[in-house]
């Protein structure tokens, strides 16, 4: 499965905007909605709500993509995003506002870096995590 990288940037920009709204309003339900969007996109990046918006509104104006990128990194990043926003939603909705704010802040950091610089934070950290979480005897 290959994806249009521009679509991912647009999705990341939309995600950043939504998380900014989450932080500004402190709405746990909005965080939950974004978590659901992440979950759907992680399962199939082409069926993600933001991907639909991209194909409907932006792709017709841009023309077909010059190159495509593999889906695995995108799906991984989306599941990282899901984790953060799920924790954030849980925090806001159970009254642990600090937890909600911190988790949403990390989600915003990752989404904004992806949108503005095309840098996938989860992908960068992936190997480091694998190194730290697996036994040294490997």
């Amino acid at each position, binding site marked *: 499965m290959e994806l249009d990288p521009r679509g991912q940037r647009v999705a990341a920009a939309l995600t950043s905007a939504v998380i900014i709204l989450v*932080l500004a309003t402190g709405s746990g339900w909005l965080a939950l909605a974004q978590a659901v969007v992440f979950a759907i996109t992680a399962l199939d990046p082409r069926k993600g709500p933001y991907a639909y918006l991209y194909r409907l509104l932006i792709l017709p104006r841009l023309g077909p993509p010059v190159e495509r990128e*593999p889906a695995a*990194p995108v799906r991984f990043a989306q599941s990282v995003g899901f984790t953060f926003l799920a924790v954030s939603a849980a925090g806001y909705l159970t009254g642990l506002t600090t937890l909600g704010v911190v988790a949403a802040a990390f989600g*915003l*950091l990752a989404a904004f870096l992806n949108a503005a610089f095309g840098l996938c934070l989860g992908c960068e950290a992936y*190997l480091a995590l694998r190194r730290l979480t697996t036994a040294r005897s490997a």
Partner: protein
Amino acid sequence: MDALGIAVIVAVLVVATTIGLWHRRTDGMIRDEAADKKRRAAILAAAGVETVEFPDRKSSNAVASAAAKAASGAAAAAVHGNDTVRAANAAARSAAAGVPAAPDLPADSGIAVPVDSGVPAPAGPVDEAASAEPAGADPQLAEPGVPGVREPGDVAAERKSGVVPDSREEPGVVEAAARDASAAGESLDQGLLDRLGIGPAQATLLQFSSAFCAPCRAVRRISGEVAELLPGVQHVEVDAESHLAEVRELNIWRTPTLLILDAGGQVVKRATGVPSKPQLIAALGDVLPDA
């Protein structure tokens, strides 16, 4: 509207922009392994941490190449008018420390040359030479050793037999090692090379990739093109996840990481991220023997 939330938004955006700009600046920079090692050691020394030198556990071939490398490093330092006594001392010290001497080290490994040609030079140029030739300049990096480094007899023999170790007459490990004096990165043992599936070549582009790594593809394309363009260069791509032990050994934290190995199996340069094709070709120019 939540004041705390707004503050957090602003803080995160500032941090993210900083990270992004820094990443853009440093991504794909090809750094000299020897210079890097030196810098790390300097930082550790400044922090008051002692660096521990691990004993050499390489095959005899690797020891030979390391010794020859130390020798040629000292020679290079001498050529640049460097402090030869210091380098020679370091080599002698590590030899005295009980590291087994290379059995198949040729007699004319060139370590004594510095005493001959080490004409005192003004301080400025010396420093420049030192930074240009990190291996030769840094006694810490001088690999274990050559016995009898400063014996006068050797000096005389050296004078007769010529100056720099002759790379054309001695094919194999020593030739390759002697060719590049600036390589003082990690020398990989044969077992590690085998596990990573690296065959012999003049230079190896060793790429570490992972499944969740979008830029790995770009590095694969660039490295493949460069390997096709330059004779004697091979490109080996390794899945980092299935080689975690080697990943630890080579101190790799991110993918893509590209290591440039010379013919002697030494890590000469390292790039994290996506280097540009011209940068990569230029870096290989330092590693490959002069055409």
